[in-house]
């Protein structure tokens, strides 16, 4: 009989890597936000499974926070913003999707080679979680590098942060790190959304005024 605990952890962490690739693959902002919500949901499930495995109730708190904030509140808020701004249009990427995917594959391979070598003494579940977490972090970085749009960059940053939480929960006996990471994640989310709103309001104003001027045919 196969090891269900390990298989389930592998399934969830592997799905997180897969959803990171789906994030890279998206070319519409609205579907990008949907996939980001899925990313957070998979993270919440993965953390909850770890909590179950390690008998660590505080991890359930982390999972609930991931579910509530990242899977529901932040995607809904971002969606409202892009709807108000009317930017459902295609995401401008710096390079095409094909090369991005290949680069992502190389990063996943790299993180597995590195992590499996480095953590030879750790428990299997922690090892694979660390390997997948590094892959998710690198993919988030790749996404931030390859997207020109601010929303795309924010989503890349948040997925990176999801990878950090996966790493923190995979390593046993680090409740303090977990707590800190949760606090920081919320803080970071607020800061990011604040900066984002600020930037967008700037852009929105200028875009709005010029559009009105052109529509009226006025000169200021």
């Amino acid at each position: 009989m196969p090891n269900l605990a390990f298989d389930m952890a592998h399934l969830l962490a592997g799905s997180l890597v897969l959803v990171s690739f789906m994030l890279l693959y998206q070319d519409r902002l609205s579907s990008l936000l949907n996939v980001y919500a899925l990313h957070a949901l998979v993270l919440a499930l993965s953390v909850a499974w770890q909590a179950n495995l390690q008998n660590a109730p505080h991890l359930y708190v982390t999972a609930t926070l991931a579910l509530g904030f990242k899977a529901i509140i932040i995607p809904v808020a971002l969606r409202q913003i892009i709807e108000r701004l009317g930017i459902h249009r295609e995401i401008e990427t710096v390079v095409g999707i094909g090369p991005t995917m290949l680069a992502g594959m190389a990063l996943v391979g790299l993180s597995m080679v590195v992590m499996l070598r480095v953590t030879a003494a750790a428990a299997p579940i922690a090892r694979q979680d660390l390997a997948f977490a590094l892959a998710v972090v690198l993919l988030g970085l790749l996404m931030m590098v390859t997207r020109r749009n601010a929303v795309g960059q924010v989503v890349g940053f948040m997925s990176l942060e999801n990878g950090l939480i996966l790493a923190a929960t995979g390593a046993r006996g680090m409740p303090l790190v977990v707590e800190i990471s949760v606090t920081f994640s919320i803080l970071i989310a607020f800061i990011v959304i604040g900066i984002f709103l600020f930037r967008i309001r700037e852009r929105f104003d200028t875009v709005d005024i010029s559009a009105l001027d052109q529509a009226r045919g006025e000169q200021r």
Partner: protein
Amino acid sequence: MALIRDLAAQFVEMVLVLVLAPGLVGLVRKTKARLTRRHGASVLQPYRDLSRLLRKEVVLAENASWLFRVAPYLIFAATWVAAALVPTFATGLLFGWSADLIAIIALLGSARFFLALAGMDVGTSFGGMGSSREVMIASLAEPAMLMTVFTLALIAGSTQLSTIAAFMNSPAVGLSVSLGLALFALIIVAIAENARIPVDNPSTHLELTMVHEAMVLEYSGRHLALIELSSALKLVLYVSLIACIFAPWGLAGAQAGAAVLLIGVSAYLAKLTAAGVLLAVFETTIAKMRVFRVPQFVGAALMLGLLGTLLRFVSGSF
């Protein structure tokens, strides 16, 4: 005696696949028609089309070479042999041990090679265009298929379909994200290879979009019948492949009795029907994509296969 028995089982399997192939195509067409609130032709219509085509005389282009006349037979033979290697209702078929997934891919690849050559043979612009598009799609679909095969072989420890099916039926499979990725990759490859809707529309002759139809535009009579039959066979082959690997329930074993074989056949028919209906629903809900988007779609399959292999590498290293 055992040899005769094995031969008979293999023969029944080959004939069954051949007989069912046009029926599956008919089922998909009928379901699609019903889903768009049309009556649609009968499920038996592909059989009638084939018999009509077989009776008609062959019209050859003036500058058609011998290759053009030979190609339909080669394509049909390669596809039929490939279909005979996939366990449909029973594992342990006579041919099943002589070849594996890689041989099936090679047979399908050679069939495609001859089809592309035949498309270019007469020298019409459509034929050449269709051939170039087909090869472009295949150049991405084939590596994706091979990556999927690698994933499966890593998990099951063999590229033999009988062994893989037996492994999938045992409780040793467990949960594996790699298998899910392999399933999706295989489905995308099947859609691309069978020229189904997001990639190509099998029921249109619109110049801008056709891929498969453009290559066989010059064929008529029994040649066209053979090519239509081989594309139907290919669809059955992919459905059987996916069913045999990912849903091997009800497959009869090597030395099974009549009752078990009967269960195997009815399970196989149920799987075919389910796959046909699902394919029709999928095709109705999705729009055909531009040719230039196809590499992205098929590239996703390649990526999934690669990711599945990588993830399997992690879980397999403990």
